[in-house]
C-alpha cells in the first residue's frame, strides 16, 4: 500500500470523536487541578476527603485520557500506512468513555481517594470511602485497559500485515534488505509505542486482577513491594508511551510543513529500538527510596533514565532541528504547536533526568519537584502536540484566535509549572491537601503563595485552551472527503 494516503471519512470520524472526548475530559481534569491548587493556596476551603478524591480523579483521569489520546494519534498514523480496524477503535473508545465516566462516579460520588497509583494496600486498609468505590475504580481501570489492548494489538496486527515485523521495527535497516526503502518513521514509532503500551497494560491488568481478588477476599495479603513494582511498571510505561505517541505524530506530519522527508536511517532505527528498552527499564526510578529493593535495580533505573536522553535529543530533537533549520517554513498553528510541544518535552526531560539521579532523588522524591517535571512535559509538551494534531485534523480559519489561545496556554502553563519547581526547590511535600500543619512558618508561607500563583497559571492555561476551542468553532471548516 502506498504511503501518505488520505483518510476516508469513516476513519476520520472515529478519530474526531475520540479527540473531542479526550479534549473534553482533559478540560474537566484541568479544572479539578485548579481547584486543588486553590485549596493548597488557602484561597478556597476543601476538606481533605474531597481534595484527595479530586487528586485521585485528576491523576487517573489525566493519565488515562492522554494515553487514550496517544493511542488514537498512533492509530491515525497507522491508518495512513496500513489498515487497522475501525471496529477495534470504536470498542476501545466505548471502553475508554465508560471507564472514564465510571471513575468520575467512583471518585466524585464514592470519594475513592487512594491516589493515581493506588499503592497497595491503601485502597483496602482502613479506607475512608465505601467499598463499592474501590471495586468500581478497579473495574473501570480494567475496562479501559481492555480497550487499550484491543486497539494496540490491532494496530500491531495491521502494521505487521502491511509491512512485516522486521520492516515495522526497522530491523531491515541492517542486513540484506537495507537497500530497499525503509518504512515511514510513523510506522516505526507507532510499533514501538504499541509494543510498550501492550506490555505495560498487561502488567497493569495482572496487578488489577490481584486488586480485584483482594477486594473479594479481604483476608488475602499480597507483597506490597511486588505490587509497587508492577503498578509503576504499568503507570510509568503508559504515561511515557503517551508522550512518544505524540512524538510519532510530529515525525509523521512535520515533513508536510517543511517539505523535507524525515527518514528512518540506521541511526533512527537504533534510537527507537533502544528507546523501547529504556521505556521498560526506567520505571525503577520510582522505587529509589525503597531501600529494600535490590540495589542493582536502582542502578539499572538510573542508567536507563540517563540513557533515554541520548536518542531523545541526539535523534529526535536534532531531527526536528534538521526539519526546521532554514526550511523556509511558515509558522502556522500546527508546526508552532509541535515545536513548542517538543521544547516543553525537552525542558521537562532535563528536570526529570536530574531527579532520576539517585543522590538527588534522596531530597526530591515526593516533593513538588516530581509533579513539576511531569506537568512540564505533559502540560506544555504532550498537550501542545495534542492540540497541534487536533488542529491538523479539524483545521480552522480562525488562525489568529487559535494562536492567541496558544500564547495564553503557554504563559499560564509555564507559570503553573514554575510554581511547582519552586515548591520542589523549597522541599514542599507533594500531595498535601493543606500546608498549614507543616511546623515551619516560612515554608508554609512559601508553599501557600506558590500554590496560589499556580492556580493563577492553571486558570490562564484553561482560558487559553477555551480560546483555542472557540477558534475551532468560529473558524470551522467543512470536513474533507465524506465517503468511505
Amino acid at each position, binding site marked *: 500500500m502506498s504511503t501518505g494516503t488520505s483518510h476516508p471519512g469513516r476513519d476520520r470520524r472515529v478519530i474526531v470523536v475520540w479527540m473531542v472526548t479526550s479534549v473534553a475530559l482533559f478540560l474537566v481534569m484541568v479544572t479539578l487541578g485548579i481547584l486543588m491548587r486553590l485549596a493548597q493556596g488557602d484561597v478556597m476551603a476543601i476538606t481533605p476527603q474531597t481534595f484527595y478524591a479530586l487528586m485521585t480523579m485528576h491523576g487517573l483521569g489525566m493519565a488515562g485520557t492522554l494515553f487514550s489520546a496517544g493511542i488514537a494519534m498512533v492509530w491515525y498514523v497507522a491508518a495512513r500506512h496500513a489498515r487497522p480496524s475501525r471496529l477495534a477503535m470504536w470498542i476501545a473508545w466505548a471502553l475508554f468513555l465508560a471507564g472514564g465516566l465510571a471513575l468520575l462516579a467512583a471518585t466524585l460520588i464514592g470519594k475513592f481517594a487512594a491516589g493515581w497509583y493506588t499503592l497497595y494496600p491503601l485502597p483496602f486498609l482502613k479506607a475512608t470511602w465505601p467499598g463499592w468505590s474501590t471495586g468500581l475504580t478497579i473495574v473501570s481501570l480494567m475496562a479501559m485497559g481492555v480497550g487499550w489492548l484491543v486497539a494496540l494489538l490491532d494496530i500491531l496486527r495491521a502494521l505487521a500485515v502491511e509491512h512485516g515485523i522486521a520492516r515495522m521495527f526497522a530491523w531491515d535497516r541492517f542486513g540484506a534488505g537495507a537497500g530497499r526503502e525503509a518504512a515511514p518513521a510513523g510506522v516505526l514509532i507507532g510499533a514501538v509505542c504499541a509494543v510498550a503500551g501492550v506490555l505495560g497494560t498487561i502488567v497493569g491488568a495482572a496487578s488489577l486482577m490481584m486488586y480485584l481478588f483482594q477486594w473479594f477476599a479481604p483476608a488475602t495479603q499480597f507483597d506490597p513491594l511486588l505490587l509497587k513494582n508492577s503498578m509503576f511498571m504499568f503507570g510509568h510505561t503508559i504515561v511515557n508511551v503517551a508522550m512518544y505517541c505524540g512524538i510519532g505524530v510530529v515525525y509523521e506530519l512535520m515533513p508536510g510543513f517543511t517539505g523535507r522527508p524525515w527518514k528512518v536511517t540506521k541511526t533512527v532505527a537504533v534510537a527507537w529500538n533502544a528507546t523501547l528498552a529504556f521505556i521498560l527499564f526506567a520505571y525503577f526510578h520510582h522505587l529509589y*527510596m525503597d531501600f529494600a529493593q535490590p540495589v542493582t535495580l536502582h542502578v539499572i533505573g*538510573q542508567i536507563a533514565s540517563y540513557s533515554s536522553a541520548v536518542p531523545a535529543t541526539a535523534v529526535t530533537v536534532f531531527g526536528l532541528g534538521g526539519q526546521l533549520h532554514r526550511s523556509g517554513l511558515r509558522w502556522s498553528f500546527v508546526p508552532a504547536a509541535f515545536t513548542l510541544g517538543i521544547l516543553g518535552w525537552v525542558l521537562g526531560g532535563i528536570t526529570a533526568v536530574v531527579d532520576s539521579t539517585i*543522590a*538527588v532523588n534522596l531530597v526530591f522524591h515526593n516533593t513538588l519537584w516530581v509533579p513539576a517535571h511531569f506537568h512540564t512535559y505533559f502540560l506544555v509538551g504532550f498537550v501542545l502536540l495534542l492540540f497541534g494534531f487536533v488542529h491538523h485534523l479539524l483545521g480552522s480559519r480562525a488562525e489568529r484566535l487559535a494562536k492567541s489561545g496558544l500564547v495564553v496556554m503557554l504563559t499560564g502553563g509555564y507559570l503553573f509549572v514554575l510554581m511547582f519547581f519552586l515548591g520542589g526547590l523549597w522541599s514542599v511535600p507533594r500531595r498535601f491537601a493543606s500546608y498549614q500543619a507543616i511546623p515551619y512558618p516560612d515554608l508554609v508561607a512559601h508553599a501557600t503563595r506558590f500554590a496560589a500563583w499556580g492556580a493563577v497559571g492553571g486558570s490562564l492555561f484553561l482560558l487559553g485552551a477555551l480560546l483555542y476551542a472557540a477558534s475551532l468553532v468560529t473558524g470551522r471548516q467543512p470536513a474533507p472527503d465524506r465517503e468511505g
Partner: protein
Amino acid sequence: MVQSLAALVSLVLALIVVAVALVVVRRASRRDPAGYANVYRVRRYYAIGLIGALAVLLVLTLARTPYAAAAAPPPDLKVEAFGWMWAWEFVVDGESRGPRLELPAGKLVEFAVSARDVNHGFGIYDPQGRLVAQTQAMPGYVNPLRVRFDEPGTYHVLCLEYCGLGHAVMMGEISVQ
C-alpha cells in the same frame, strides 16, 4: 545543598535549550535547501559529548547513593521508626518514645524504618525546613536510613508517601542537642 545545585543545573541547561530553540526557530523561515546538513554535522559532536558527560555523571553520582548502610562503619545509635495512619513512632531499645525523639549531636544514627498499615514516607527536615534525607516506610519491609545530625536544633519528620486523609498532618519531631 543538593536541591540548589540540582535546580541550578536544570536552570542552566534549560536556558541553553531555549537559546538554541530561538536561533533555530528564527532561521527556520529562511530557505536554504541544504540547511539541514549543518545540523547533522553538529550532531556527531553533540552525541559524543552527551554520552561522555552522562557517563561521568553516572560514575560520580552512583558513588553517592544512600544504600551503603550494610558496608559502612556501624552506626553510633539505632532507632526504629514506624509510620501508621496518621502518626510516627520512634522505638529505642524496644521502648516506645512516641512521635518525639532526642538525640545527641554529631552521632551517626541508623533509622530502621517500617510501617504498621499502609505505605508512608519518612522524610527528615532540618531546623531550617529543608529536606535532608528520606526513605519509604513500607509494611513488611525495613529500610535502613543513616543520617548524621551535626547541627543541633529541632528536626521534623514529614510524611512523604500519600497515605490517606491525614497524610498532611502526620508529624514527628527529633530534637538534637
